[in-house]
């Protein structure tokens, strides 16, 4: 009976199993194989052992892409976390047109990233740019955003804040789950709003924070569309990220073997960082289900 149930269960999830095997496991396995080949895509792959991995260690472009990606991760994740929690707290309070404000914050997330990046590219642009025109109106000369490595990176990070919607919605739902009696008890004990936030609310939603940070990390480590459209990686590779190098190696340089190596290393790095975050999370995340 038990085996029959298992068989029925497997049959029902078989479409997913087939899809997962064909579109995740098989490409990953092939990626590992291709990462150890010299493959131009237009010719048959030739096995080269660990040559691509050795090349990666001495590749200056890899170092630049790695630094930019880490910088982006380190800046965007805290910024996104703080912004989305702050917005969730703000929007959880009773207010007129509350639903409208929530929709307004979430709406940009519905737009395709390509469209958003194109719009922002125009907004930052010197000639049409709403940003520089706005700055101009208050007497500030805006920078030429994409001419300087620093400002180009700032432009991409600021644009990224525009899509706080999904994380904010998850925080909003988790805030509703914080037991009201805990906050009330803290209030009666004279704890301030800030104290309640730090000692009650944030610990209660910490599993959700960990979840959002992990999702944010996975997304940030694969950042591609926005810099590809807005800056093309420049100037001087100042906004050149790891995923852009994977793409360039594969489709612009015809070096699919090396692109596979870069992709496998990226996958392993994200996996290790995620495991690391989960381990760190054990110390700082408070699970209510685990209460004695």
């Amino acid at each position, binding site marked *: 009976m038990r085996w029959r149930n298992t068989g029925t269960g497997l049959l029902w999830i078989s479409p997913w199993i087939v899809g997962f095997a064909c579109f995740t496991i098989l490409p990953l396995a092939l990626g590992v194989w291709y990462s150890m080949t010299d493959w131009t895509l237009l010719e048959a792959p030739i096995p080269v052992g660990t040559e691509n991995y050795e090349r990666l260690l001495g590749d200056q472009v890899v170092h630049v892409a790695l630094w930019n990606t880490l910088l982006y991760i380190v800046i965007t994740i805290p910024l996104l976390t703080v912004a989305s929690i702050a917005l969730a707290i703000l929007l959880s309070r009773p207010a007129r047109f509350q639903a409208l404000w929530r929709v307004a914050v979430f709406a940009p997330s519905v737009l395709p990233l390509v469209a958003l990046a194109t719009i922002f590219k125009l907004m930052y642009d*010197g000639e049409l740019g709403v940003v520089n025109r706005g700055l101009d109106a208050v007497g500030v000369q805006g920078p030429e955003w994409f001419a300087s490595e620093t400002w180009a990176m700032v432009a991409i990070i600021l644009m990224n804040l525009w899509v706080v919607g999904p994380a904010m919605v998850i925080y909003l739902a988790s805030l509703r789950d914080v037991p009201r009696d805990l906050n009330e008890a803290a209030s009666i004990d004279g704890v301030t709003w800030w104290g309640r936030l730090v000692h009650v609310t944030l610990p209660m939603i910490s599993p959700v924070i960990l979840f959002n940070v992990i999702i944010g990390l996975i997304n940030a480590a694969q950042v591609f569309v926005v810099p590809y459209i807005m800056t093309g990686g420049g100037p001087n590779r100042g906004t050149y990220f790891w995923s852009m190098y994977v793409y*360039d190696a594969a489709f612009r340089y015809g070096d699919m073997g090396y692109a596979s190596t870069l992709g496998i290393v990226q996958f392993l790095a994200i996996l290790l960082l995620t495991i690391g975050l989960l381990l760190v999370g054990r110390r700082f995340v408070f699970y209510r289900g685990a209460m004695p």
Partner: protein
Amino acid sequence: MRESSGRFIGLVFLGGIALAALGYAIFGPKPATAVSGDRIVLNYWEKWTGSEAAAMQQVVDAFNASQDRVHVNYLTMSSIDEKAMLSIAGGAPPDVLGLWSFNLPFYAQADAILPLDLQGIVAETYAPAVRPLVFDGDQQLAGVNTCSSVAVYVNLTHLDRAGLDWRNGGPPRTLEQFDAMIPHLTIHDEEGNVEQAAFLHMDPGWWHWCWPGYFGGQLYDVETDTATIDSPENIAAFTWFQEGQRRYGRDALRRFQSAPTDNPSPYRNFLTGRLSMTIQGPWMARVIAESAPELNWAAWPLPGPVGSPDAPAGPIECDILVVPRGAPHPDEAMEFIAFTQRQDMVELVSSLHAKPSPLMDVSADFYFNHLNTSIAAHEAILHSPNGFGTPPVATWPEMNAALTAGVDRIWNGDEDVATALSEVQAEVEGQLERARIRRQRRGQERFGARP
């Protein structure tokens, strides 16, 4: 009862999806490789859009009307080089591909395109600078759609206003004469901001690889298969390039470039009269006619240490036609390409693109009413022994990426020219070494090594 009706609706829904999928498989779109009526259908992928695509459509229509055996199905698309690569790798390429001349070495190196055998066409059919862009030794690998050379577009009103006598003196003949014009054409406002710039090397910044060519330098030596990026000629060229920024100051230029204007195009500074001179391709004539018809302009070859008014230097690029490996109808594809190489067809598409003809023989009608009134300047560069293209190397996209980063450092003044170029040289040497190892593994001959 409710359960069975729900099940029935579910089955009907699933059946509907299955029927739709079956219908799509049978009647849905298919690659047009099959015979249409009595005709063989050729699929031709091209990269152009808008009026440029429409110009080529006229050639396709003329071919389709010229015979009743082959029909060309013309499809324009973006990112064509990447799609071409995937289609060839996947074994389902079109019959004819419209690429850029700089794509040729990579595709040829990988045997991904077929050698062409076009009746009546030899290397001498094309302008000298065009030949190495479509031939590997004596073997023709591509047909030419259009060609463009890059010249300096000049706002003549600015020159008049600055008292520069171009009517009697003619265009500048030397780089010194060109540089001497710059202070006269530069205007600062009361606060010291640049109001009108004379010439900016990075506006629009599409040909940053071209400067060595004006100084007798090159980025790659095809004879020895070595990078020559940090050669003295190239250092001289990029020093002149960097002076172009230092003349105004980096911050002043950034303020100038970020100032709001009312023209959204990459040509905005020239079209709005904020920039007196800019390097551009021959299509600029069409852009000016459409966006700033009141502009009084002319195009001249940019003078340099190399070249002369009779044999000016300048970069040359071509749009090429190739038959990819695995093309379903290679013979018919070559028949179509041969048709596009006819003088009347080349002139038709070139004139509609406002470009010079890539052929040696040009009809008198071609120049009559040409969209670009300065076409002679572009023609002179195209037929000059000092015209030059991108390095004929399979790793050009990677080499170009390294050079772009180096050029950014030079332009921003982050590094001195020699240091920046030596860094690019080291990076490119690594690329060429990898390409050499790759060829050895496959027993391939280097593109350009064929006599």
